């Protein structure tokens, strides 16, 4: 078998085995969006009226609105978790093992990224299955159409995590990332509120939301779940994935990177 494919499969297998052995991680990855769905959304539905806008063709309840956003949230957290584990790997030395492989570094990083994305997609489908138990269901075609959207959004958010991991010097700095990256990104997106609702509060907030990477991920997923394609979100996601990945590869480049020098 081709060495590239072999390494990709090997890295994916390792990430999956690690994920399965960390039961707490799987559990919290599911409980977090379910809390939002079952408690937050139930309380919030009375406070927030939603108008009809694409891809919806009728009035929807708030629970239905936030499901794509929660899928994005799962992938956002998973991307950050992978990034966290990369920084941990670097401190623990496993990163050095990966980087002594004779395969090109960009390929090794891409394999890591794809492996993390596959894991995030599994989490999303398990979440969607549980949501279906609460009567939040989509058509079978919607579930199928969501797959490529989830793949792209997972790659973008994973690449974002990779980029962050290449710039973070110490594990301790990760708490800062949670506060200053993950939460603002989540709240400043269409995951919880539509753009027009944001505009009512503040035009500036609306604009920040409209350009947030997570917004494009959530909108691509939202449209896909209704078997519709959102070209704007797609173009944004492809561009952002390429940009973040290029930044991450540069960050891990032995000729340019300053970050790995600490390890000496």
């Amino acid at each position, binding site marked *: *078998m*081709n*060495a*590239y494919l*072999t*390494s990709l*499969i*090997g*890295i994916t*297998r*390792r990430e999956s*085995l*690690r994920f399965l*052995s*960390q039961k707490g991680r799987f559990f919290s990855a599911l409980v977090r969006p379910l809390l939002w769905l079952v408690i937050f959304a139930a309380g919030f539905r009375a406070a927030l009226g939603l108008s009809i806008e694409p891809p919806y063709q009728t009035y929807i309840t708030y629970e239905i609105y936030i499901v794509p956003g929660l899928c994005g949230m799962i992938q956002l957290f998973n991307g950050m978790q992978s990034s966290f584990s990369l920084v941990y790997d670097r401190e*623990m*030395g*496993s990163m*050095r*093992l*990966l*980087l*002594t*492989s*004779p*395969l*090109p570094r960009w390929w*090794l990083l891409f394999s890591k990224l794809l492996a993390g994305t596959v894991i995030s997609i599994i989490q999303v489908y398990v979440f969607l299955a549980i949501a279906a138990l609460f009567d939040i269901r989509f058509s079978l075609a919607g579930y199928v159409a969501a797959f490529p959207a989830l793949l792209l959004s997972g790659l973008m958010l994973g690449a974002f995590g990779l980029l962050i991991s290449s710039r973070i010097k110490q594990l301790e700095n990760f708490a800062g990332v949670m506060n200053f990256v993950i939460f603002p990104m989540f709240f400043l997106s269409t995951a919880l509120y539509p753009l027009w609702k944001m505009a009512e509060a503040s035009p500036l907030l609306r604009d920040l939301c409209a350009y947030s990477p997570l917004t494009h991920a959530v909108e691509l997923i939202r449209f896909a779940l209704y078997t519709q394609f959102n070209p704007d979100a797609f173009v944004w996601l492809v561009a952002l994935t390429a940009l973040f990945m290029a930044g991450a590869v540069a960050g891990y480049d*032995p*000729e340019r*990177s300053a970050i*790995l*020098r600490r*390890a*000496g």
Partner: protein
Amino acid sequence: MTSQDRTGLEVDRLTHRYGSKTALDGVSFSVEQGTFCALLGPNGAGKSTLFALLTRLFVPREGTIRVAGVSLQENPRAALAMIGVVFQQPTLDLDLSVVQNMKYFAALHGLSGREADKRIGESLSRLGMAERANEKVRSLNGGHRRRMEIARSLVHRPRILLLDEPTVGLDAASRQSITEHVHGLARDDGLTVLWATHLVDEVGDSDQLVVLHQGKIRADATSGEIRNGQPLAQAFARLTNDCEAAA
């Protein structure tokens, strides 16, 4: 066998700086194929920097590294394919089994299926670890974990083996057993070994010994020649103290 085939590792005028601090200063030495070479130096001598450059964790600005005749700078992938590494820090997934750890590493080197299984089996047997193949790494003691890492570093059949203080934190019996195993790899299998340490008792008289101190090579000969009838610890102390006195 041509002369190039006899070449194990060649390091030529290697210099590396962290900002204004010089960690390695014109380091040159070579190790012939099948030789066990101990790289002895006190903490902070520059051993880890040298290892980071040898494993291409970062790229040297000055000087060259050749692995079995292949330049690490010009052809990094071919050179890395011939290097096996055991890092000072453990690099194992504790919750995976020995075999799962080995398979992951084999995949990173493009090995899979029956060929990978065969080589993993051979490497584990070589280090006396075959019966532990399916145990979780977490359940292994420190000595066995280290042996597993050495077995893992052999899976892709490297020409040279780099070990960065591999016995740190192990008890005396494990230390001796691992030192003997690796000497055997050089003697019986023709592997070129570079073994970084700060412990003199891991070096045999017939081993090549390179003494590194404050980023410079202070001695390069067989250990027997360097100690010249004295205990090695004394010779080593003299070499490193002389430098400090001169500095």
